[in-house]
């Protein structure tokens, strides 16, 4: 037997060093400018790709919540609002620069704790997080001109409960406008992803931000509920699933507190027969599988015109197959890890889909090991009535449906309680505009998907929540208007 000829081109593993994340053994809450307390339930932050613990985290309890809220109240009255927008802007710029300086460390840390490929955290999360601070630094001294009347007053202490996907970007989208407006914040990061938020606390310290302006309380859902219900919190911000969001709204009703919620979605891509096929394939694949589908605006549904459906799905499979599933720290990885709990939840969803009549196809791309990974999966023969077409998927699963006329496409796309994001693919401008006007979603991308810019407002309708992040609209949640 002759030795096999070496392949002319192959991708060798290109691993980022986990040491770049400068992990510590132990993390504590960040309250009133110090890393102290944490007398609540301690927990481990776990790497979803390996199921190994990354660090011990001291959980927060009621007394930590009290301390954080009163520190934020004091900072609001004495150290943050009084200094004025021009001074506040300087701190925001400083935070942005520190995020850029420590981008590599934070990108690796975010990849470790979320399972997102390090190339995406480097190229997407970190630059966009810094961009949020740069953008809102510009607003801090121009609030009079933001369209909310003269001298709009800040909300006071803001409690923010954040989800586990893209943790640093989602934090930046909410903390930056709050600080620009003169509000102070107490952040409760997701139980799964507290580390980037706590290192963000360190960056606030490094930037010389007055104590108490930003506080970070790691912990489980109980901590979040206590924080949002705390009488000292004037404004509650909840970002997470629709189900939890509804519960939060019920709990806070009648407490004289304002609530902004950024909830789930079941985004859709509508591909017309005249779309540029390869680019539409790319958009649909990115839309469904970016960050393992773990973004609320993920395009988890595809509506493709029946006349091109067969060819389009064949192209979709070929492209999906070429995605590399693997170690999130490998710079050649396209699809990272989910963690075994998420994989179990999605497997159940897929089983239900197949039982209801859908056809499952999973990319043969081999994950490094069983457990925390689910290769990108397509469900074809999906009907509007099936649970997969109605659920908030939040994973690398794409449901494929077809349509015959533009009206049918719009009707099917809108037939969901959510209304966050949609993509329209057509080479004909008038058709794209016709469709976009009729879609009941907060965002419509034409011949694109997942394009973000700090100047562009982003948010949803219906059960996707009422919050807006980005641009002047992103200030509203933190102003008393």
């Amino acid at each position, binding site marked *: 037997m002759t030795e096999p000829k*070496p*392949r*002319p*081109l*192959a*991708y*060798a593993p*290109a691993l980022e060093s986990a040491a770049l994340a400068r992990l510590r053994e132990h993390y504590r809450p960040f309250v009133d400018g110090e890393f102290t307390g944490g007398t609540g339930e301690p927990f481990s932050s776990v790497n979803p790709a390996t199921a190994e613990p990354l660090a011990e985290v001291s959980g927060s309890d009621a007394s930590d919540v009290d301390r954080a809220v009163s520190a934020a109240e004091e900072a609001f009255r004495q150290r943050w609002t009084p200094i004025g927008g021009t001074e506040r802007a300087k701190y925001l710029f400083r935070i942005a620069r520190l995020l850029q300086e420590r981008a590599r460390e934070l990108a690796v840390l975010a990849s470790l704790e979320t399972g997102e490929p390090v*190339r995406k955290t480097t*190229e997407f999360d970190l630059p966009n997080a810094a961009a949020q601070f740069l953008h809102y630094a510009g607003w801090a001294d121009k609030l009079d001109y933001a369209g909310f009347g003269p001298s709009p007053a800040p909300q006071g202490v803001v409690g923010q409960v954040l989800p586990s996907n893209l943790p640093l970007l989602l934090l930046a989208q909410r903390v930056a406008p709050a600080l620009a407006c003169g509000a102070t914040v107490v952040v409760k990061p997701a139980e799964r992803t507290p580390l980037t938020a706590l290192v963000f606390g360190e960056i606030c310290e490094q930037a010389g931000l007055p104590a108490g302006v930003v506080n970070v309380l790691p912990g489980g859902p109980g901590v979040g509920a206590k924080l949002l219900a705390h009488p000292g919190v004037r404004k509650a911000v909840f970002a997470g699933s629709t189900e939890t969001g509804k519960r939060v709204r019920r709990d806070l009703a009648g407490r004289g507190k304002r609530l902004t919620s950024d909830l789930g979605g079941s985004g859709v891509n509508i591909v017309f027969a*005249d*779309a*540029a*096929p*390869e*680019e*539409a394939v*790319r*958009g649909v694949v990115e839309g469904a599988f970016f960050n393992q589908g773990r973004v609320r605006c993920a395009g988890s549904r595809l509506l493709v015109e029946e006349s091109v459906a067969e060819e389009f799905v064949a192209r979709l499979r070929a492209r999906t197959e*070429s995605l590399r599933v693997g170690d999130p720290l490998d*710079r*050649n990885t396209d699809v990272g890890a989910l963690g075994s709990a998420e994989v179990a939840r999605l497997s159940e969803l897929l089983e239900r889909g197949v039982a209801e009549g859908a056809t499952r196809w999973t990319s043969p791309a081999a994950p490094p090991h069983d457990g925390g990974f689910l290769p990108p999966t397509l469900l074809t023969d999906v009907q509007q009535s099936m649970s997969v077409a109605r659920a908030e998927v939040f994973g690398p699963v794409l449901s494929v449906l077809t349509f015959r006329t533009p009206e049918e496409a719009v009707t099917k796309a809108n037939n969901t309680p959510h209304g966050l994001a949609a993509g329209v693919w057509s*080479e004909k401008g008038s058709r794209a505009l016709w469709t976009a006007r009729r879609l009941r979603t907060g965002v419509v991308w034409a*011949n*694109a998907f997942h394009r973000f810019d700090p100047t562009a407002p982003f948010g949803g309708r219906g059960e996707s929540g009422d919050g807006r992040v980005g641009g002047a609209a992103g200030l509203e949640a933190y102003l008393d208007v």
Partner: protein
Amino acid sequence: MVDSPPSNPPKAGLPGDLAEATRDEAALTRFLRGLPGIDAVGLEQRAASLAGRAVKGDAKLRAIDTAIGMVDLTTLEGADNASKVRALAAKARRPDSRFPDVPRVAALCVYPDLVSDAVAALRGSGVGVASVATAFPSGRSTIRAKLAEVELAVESGADEVDMVIDRGAFLAGEYGRVFDEIEQVRAACAPAHLKVILETGELGGYDNVWRASWLALLAGADFIKTSTGKVSPAATLPVTHVLLRAVREWRDRTGQPRGVKPAGGIRTTKDAVRYLVAVLEVAGPEWLTPESFRFGASGLLNDLLMQRETQLDGHYSGPDQVAVDL
């Protein structure tokens, strides 16, 4: 699929719809205008994201050797003469005298009147001789003059002919004229391989590059090539994606393999590796051979040699360790 007898004999081996497209100018125009579009933003994003693939260590060394074997070492200057051709031929045979295991390049690419010198200098080496022709680089001459040039090249022993298309006619929508010219050159250059230069920098957009690629493939090009190197922009990654997509779809529809050659502007190993990644991911692994992919370049070879040495020795040496192209 064609019911009425075609006015042109249908091309052998083409499936019905493609054979139909070659029947007359009207059919060809319908076919080219009916091709699906290309979205510039999405195409450029894909090209940029694939450019981020990391090829390191041993894989990089193999990629460098693969790239060296795909180089069409090129000299196309007014000052070219027999001595310059002999110098380059020596380098084409053995690119780096210190490392005998460096593969030879694919071909030496010269002007038609220097083909006989190149053939003499490369006899027995396995390195091909390619010649530009058809009033390179502008293509502005009569078909008679163009064919005479092709005949000169082929009679002098060229293995490959790199022709330019008539961009003026293409932009005027005279697809039939461009098609006929390629077919005539195709006939005149046999048995040499035909590379058709689209000069993408003058075509004004990816949709036209896509149409021109299909036009050249329908007319019988063995290779489609981006540029002459005399017009800026020359080869770019997104444009090469379009060409690679065309040959892959051509293979899927006809079963016939066709090649791609980006030319001009590819100067570094990093660039070359990015092109190889595009070949692998857009066309497929079967295209990673000199029979299906070439680099039209001159300076690139030296950078590949320097990077190759760096991979082997662990340190970078310097430009004077490799031969200048003079």
